[in-house]
């Protein structure tokens, strides 16, 4: 192992830990926010930091100026033909996104504080959905416009586009800063300051240890509970392989880091050095994950035992029996996937999904079995009998306080994030997008290619890393929703479900999958081509379904609402005269 490999491994570990630790509080916030929105209450939004308006202006203008500087700097660089062409397309699309999104934000600001000039009156009078539709139309027009630019005009066009983007970003940042009100500005960040305040409070809180409890094991419990969650993330690939060139000495040195290949072929033939975007590429693959996740039970059991509390002991017992039971179904539900993917490693699994179809299309039954078993492993709703408030208060961590309790809490959400990353990798194509290959976008059904667009190795890699983290965030968001939808199962129901429903279903799924795979292997070649086309059709369904869902959701979100007023009381009449309920100066 060379020095650069050690450094790269450290960087990957830091990325992983930063992602998990950064997103765990945000997941906690999302949990609270969802509960508030479902129950029609404002939710966690009282935590605020008051900053002077000059600083708020800086916060508004800063990112815009920063991006403008990047765009302007890129415009002044000498770019190769390929990069110039790609830069033109990306610049146009970015400019359109910035334009319609900042118009929507302006519409919201005008709605809140009124228009101050003719332009704002024009924007404020518009239906926000029309702004969004116009933006989408502009995206399409921009795409065709960019493709109609001849290749030899690209070096000029990229300068024009990027300079226009710079001007647009500066204008948006400047106007946004001028709209910040004077005086102290409350920064609430939609309530995300709440988990930060909570963490601060937990660190400063008294750490109570039960006098008759086992001091050592009591301290060890939270560590043993949080550690497996982190180390299971090590084998999940958060991006595709990177190919670095060689500077002649055949050894991977620091000088090679600058020699990232400009393009790679889809089959990834790399003559230099390959870097996996994955902390550990183990050949046992997912078996390591099962082994490490299995040790999570030790933390809960030890915490329950060491607390010297009968509720804790009951919670620890419930947790351990539940986690041990569901490990069997968890492992067996995935055997069908291994048979289809032909590998235990997660990287080849993702590659199979890129070439064929996402796991949820080939193993839908396994998806639901795995989802259920995994939620039981995580002790999350509806399988949270180990911490059932109505029976055993908080279960195995009833005697924990301060940051030790915080570690259990954070560990639960880190586990949630890791499980979402695993779900994304196994069933939702991991870091891949439909039709996105290592050499660019190729939309092809069978032998007919509908659309092709070549991209550089760097841009594909960055896109894939973003896609992986985005999928993880979306899936954990959906998983958090389970908590606000499903009622808790009784303990005997949990056991019955695990041993008499999930386990036989997993074994049956495994057998049926094996038979089908055997039958397909011996099928004629025409059948294989048909399957390949069916896989590409699933990719097409994903792309069009995803785009349609995005447009429908945004248009639905921007839909204006009609409301009826009830002026039945003098208080309501006073509020109506003041233009809505607000803080009135006459009252304390």
């Amino acid at each position: 192992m060379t020095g650069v490999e050690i450094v790269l491994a450290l960087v990957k570990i830091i990325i992983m830990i930063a992602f998990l630790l950064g997103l765990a509080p945000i997941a906690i916030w999302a949990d609270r926010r969802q509960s508030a929105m479902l129950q029609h209450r404002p939710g966690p939004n009282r935590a605020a930091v008051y900053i002077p308006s000059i600083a708020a202006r800086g916060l508004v203008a800063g990112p815009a100026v920063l991006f403008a500087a990047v765009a302007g700097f890129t415009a002044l660089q000498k770019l190769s033909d390929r990069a110039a062409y790609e830069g033109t397309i990306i610049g146009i699309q970015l400019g359109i996104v910035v334009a319609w999104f900042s118009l929507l934000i302006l519409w919201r600001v005008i709605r809140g504080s009124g228009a101050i000039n003719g332009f704002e009156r024009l924007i404020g009078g518009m239906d926000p959905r029309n702004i969004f539709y116009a933006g989408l139309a502009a995206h399409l027009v921009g795409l065709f416009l960019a493709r109609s630019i001849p290749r030899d005009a690209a070096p000029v066009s990229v300068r024009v586009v990027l300079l226009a983007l710079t001007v647009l970003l500066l204008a948006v940042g400047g106007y946004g800063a001028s709209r910040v009100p004077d005086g102290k500005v409350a920064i609430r960040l939609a309530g995300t300051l709440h988990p930060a305040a909570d963490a601060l409070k937990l660190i400063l809180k008294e750490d109570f240890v039960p006098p008759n409890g086992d001091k050592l094991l009591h301290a060890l419990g939270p560590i043993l509970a949080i550690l497996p969650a982190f180390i299971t993330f090590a084998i999940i690939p958060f991006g595709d392989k990177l190919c670095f060139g060689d500077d002649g000495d055949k050894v991977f040195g620091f000088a090679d880091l600058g020699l990232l290949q400009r393009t790679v072929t889809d089959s990834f033939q790399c003559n230099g050095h390959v870097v996996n975007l994955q902390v550990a590429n183990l050949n046992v693959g997912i078996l390591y994950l099962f082994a490490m996740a299995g040790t999570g039970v030790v933390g809960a059991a030890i915490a329950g035992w060491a607390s010297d509390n009968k509720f804790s002991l009951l919670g620890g017992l419930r947790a351990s029996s539940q986690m041990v039971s569901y490990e069997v179904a968890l492992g067996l539900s995935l055997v069908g996937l291994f048979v289809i993917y032909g590998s235990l490693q997660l990287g080849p699994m993702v590659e199979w999904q890129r070439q064929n179809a996402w796991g949820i299309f080939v193993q839908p039954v396994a998806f639901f079995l795995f989802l259920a078993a995994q939620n039981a492993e995580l002790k999350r709703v509806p399988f949270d009998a180990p911490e059932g408030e109505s029976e055993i208060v908080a279960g195995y961590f009833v005697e924990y306080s301060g940051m030790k309790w915080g570690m259990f809490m954070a560990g639960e959400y880190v586990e949630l994030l890791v499980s979402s990353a695993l779900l994304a990798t196994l069933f939702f194509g991991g870091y891949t997008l439909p039709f996105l290959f290592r050499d660019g976008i190729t939309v092809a059904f069978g032998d007919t290619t509908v659309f092709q667009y070549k991209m550089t190795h760097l841009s594909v890699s960055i896109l894939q890393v973003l896609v992986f983290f985005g999928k993880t965030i979306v899936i954990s968001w959906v998983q958090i929703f389970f908590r606000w939808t499903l009622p808790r199962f009784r303990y005997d129901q949990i056991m019955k479900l695990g041993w008499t429903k999930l386990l036989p279903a997993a074994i049956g799924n495994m057998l049926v999958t094996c038979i089908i795979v055997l039958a397909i292997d011996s099928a004629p070649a025409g059948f294989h081509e048909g399957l390949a086309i069916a896989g590409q059709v699933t990719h097409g369904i994903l792309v069009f379904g995803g785009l349609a869902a995005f447009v429908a959701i945004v248009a639905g979100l921007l839909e204006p609402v009609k409301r009826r007023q009830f002026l039945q009381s003098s208080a309501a009449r006073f509020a109506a005269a003041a233009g809505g309920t607000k803080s009135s100066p006459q009252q304390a």
Partner: protein
Amino acid sequence: MAKAPAPNPWTKPRGEAIKLKVIPRPQRTAEVQSYVPAFLKGMSITMRHFFKNTKEMVLGQKPDPVLEGLEEGITTINYPEEKRPYPERFRGLHRLTLRQDDSPRCVACLCCSTACPAQCIHIVAAEYPEGDTRRGYERYPSSFVIDELRCIFCGFCVEACPCDAIRMDTGMHATAYDSREQFIYKRELLMSFTGRDGSRETANPRHEPGDETHPGVTREHMEH
């Protein structure tokens, strides 16, 4: 032979079969047993609520908690950014209404302090100086003190006042102070408060001695 006991409707009659009412077991179809359709339905309901309320919060479309409080959505009042206005007849802190010339309407008759069940009003009456047109008709309060901490906000003083000189229509409630002395409101402070309409006077006209509209006796009647 003992008399046969009256038949108990709650026990089984001798020699007869128990009448059963068969309650059918709930239908556990495969759809219900598999849990998945119901789960997806529940998820769609929670997501609908989430998206609707989030969107209204982000776009500023939340129903107004007072004006549109019966509508769907989040109608919580975000105190202190939002406050429910007090109703029109809310009894807030007292104020002393003024005449046209900014002197208090109060004639120091002591009706309010007499009516006050909490005995929180203290008035020192004084005569107008020699030569003033009001001298001999009215007196004025040289000191008018209300202990707002002692006041029970019953409104009897307002009812008792014959001159519409004390009112509780400021719409203010007592603020939190750090000492008891600050709750003792003196004449000048009470005179500085305005009603909800922003005026220091009242809508009731005041008829000064010597005015055409003055209803009472004049100095000329003193001759009799």
